């Protein structure tokens, strides 16, 4: 009973006062309740892929948005996770609960392996060096078709679950859990250090922070998350085949960048917003106007970035909420006085 009352009070005082938190709550609840509404396999499939890709986008945001180590080759982690689990499943016929962690572990190792040489590189050099890695892996996949399946890819991969709804809940659960864990990480001291490394690495080092260790941590965490997404993708009903043209392609590397910048970088909710807006949109366009889908998609991304260069979720959040000038607590934009310290909000000068 005490806990129920605590929960209600928490909801009233901390969640319902801010529109952005209400939106997150409603969003998660509606995702969980969605199969009650419809069990159309195509819609569920789109949502499964969207959930996986939001995990993938968050992993990019962690490395590049927070830590500032811009990676243009993130498909390496997604692809190595997908390939490792697909190969284990197809050659050794191991069950998914063994191959998915193995795929994630391989991607973590890939993250460390890429991170280690990239520690010395700065900014654009880093971005373009990382761009090279998935292309190199593609080259080797294509050069040894006997083992890797070559251009046609790996198939005969075990399904995660027997029904589509069970798969939906499994993947949604993993994605939600991982996002919550990552949120805790970036809200902690570690997240603060990530921000510091992005803003000024030399200054962070001068403060006694072992930036090498934290950069490697960011690479490993990002690889782990992207690899888990890739491994689940390989086993999901969305991908029957793991082929280099999909999971290791240049477009796969650029996609998380598009989603994250579109949604708002260095926020966990930004990339998720980006994926949940853009991926179903692209999927719908594919059905409605298949010939012009990428045309419309690119035009839309271009226009939104032109007018909201900080990303769509940041723009919306700034429109509906206001930071108290004296105590930095967020308030709904309609309030006249801050909910924590009572300082007047309307009087603040326009930013």
């Amino acid at each position, binding site marked *: 009973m005490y806990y129920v009352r605590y929960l209600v009070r928490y909801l009233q005082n901390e969640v319902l006062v801010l529109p952005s938190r209400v939106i997150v709550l409603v969003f998660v609840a509606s995702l969980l309740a969605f199969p009650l509404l419809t069990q159309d396999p195509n819609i569920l499939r789109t949502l499964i892929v969207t959930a996986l890709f939001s995990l993938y986008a968050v992993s990019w945001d962690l490395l590049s948005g927070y830590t500032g180590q811009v990676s243009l080759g993130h498909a390496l982690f997604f692809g190595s996770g997908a390939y490792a689990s697909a190969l284990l499943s197809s050659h050794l016929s191991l069950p998914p609960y063994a191959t998915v962690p193995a795929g994630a572990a391989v991607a973590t190792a890939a993250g460390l392996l890429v991170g280690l040489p990239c520690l010395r590189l700065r900014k654009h*050099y880093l971005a373009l060096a990382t*761009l090279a890695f998935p292309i190199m892996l593609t080259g080797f996949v294509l050069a040894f078709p006997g083992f890797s399946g070559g251009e046609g890819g790996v198939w005969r991969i075990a399904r995660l679950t027997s029904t589509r709804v069970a798969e939906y809940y499994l993947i949604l659960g993993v994605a939600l859990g991982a996002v919550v864990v990552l949120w805790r990480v970036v809200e902690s001291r570690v997240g603060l250090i990530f921000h510091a490394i992005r803003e000024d690495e030399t200054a962070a080092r001068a403060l006694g922070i072992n930036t090498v260790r934290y950069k490697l941590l960011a690479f490993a965490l990002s690889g782990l998350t992207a690899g888990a997404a890739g491994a689940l993708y390989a086993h999901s009903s969305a991908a029957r085949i793991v082929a280099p043209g999909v999971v290791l392609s240049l477009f796969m590397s650029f996609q998380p960048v*598009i989603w994250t910048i579109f949604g708002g970088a260095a926020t966990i909710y930004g990339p998720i917003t980006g994926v949940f807006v853009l991926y179903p949109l692209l999927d719908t366009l594919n059905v409605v106007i298949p010939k012009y889908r990428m045309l419309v998609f*690119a035009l839309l991304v271009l226009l939104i970035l032109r007018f909201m260069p900080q990303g769509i979720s940041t723009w919306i959040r700034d429109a509906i909420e206001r930071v108290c000038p004296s105590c930095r607590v967020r308030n709904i934009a309609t309030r006249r006085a801050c909910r924590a310290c009572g300082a007047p909000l309307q009087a603040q000068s326009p930013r």
Partner: protein
Amino acid sequence: MVANILVNGLVYSGVYAMLALGFGLVFGVGRVLNLAHTAFYMVAAYGIFHFASTGFAMPLAVLLTSLGIVAVGVAVYKLVIEPVREMEATVLIATLAVAVLLQEVVLVFFGNEPRHVPPALTGFTQVVGVRVGNQEMVTLIVAVLSLIGAWFLLSRTKLGLAIRAAAQDREVANLMGINVNLVTAVVMGLGLLLAALAGIAVAPLFTVEPGMWMNPLVIVLAAVVLGGLGSLKGSLIGAVILAFAEVSVVFLVPGGSYLRTAIALLIMVCVFFIRPEGLYGSSIAEER
């Protein structure tokens, strides 16, 4: 074999050098990492295909294509890239969106099937005992002439001085009375002119298809960072190194056509282990 590597390597070097020079100029002056650069090269190849198949005279077709590319490119830069120029990640996505947009427009107008442009010259010439296709010669000559032209413009004219000043330090160049925004737009036009000429020059040699911008983009990015961002000499040398690496892998390694980009990029990464700032980059790049 050696002759093949030499001829093809030189042709690829010329093309990559033209692309890398334009890309490097735009990055150096505008600090814009223009991922759409090679998409304009692809559009130029389609432009020459279109004009050639509708029966325009070759010089007129070349002129129309390159002017069209420059006009479209500068308009795109002014409309969508300049307003967000300060935000690097946004620029990245905006230019990528432009590239995809160009690819899709080409797809709508010309379809997905690969196209071929009839060569301007056929036949072969004997150069020091090696048979070289005349079209390859033309491509190489176009590349050399445009590189010399670009070098002349950069080092011998007042505009070139302004461009180099803006590349060295944008703020100070602005204080010295150089209209930096205008110079950036001019450089964008110049870079795209080089890209358009490269596209025109390779159209008769390569298959013309909507996806033909991806591979050169990767190589050009690699060449520019290999040479050191901001160093024009470096990007030219990077382009030559990567072109010869690609061509030799194709000719010497079995299954090399799959591995050519992989090996070229491996060379780039190996150079980074020794010199993280590229061959000719300045090691204090952050102060620039």
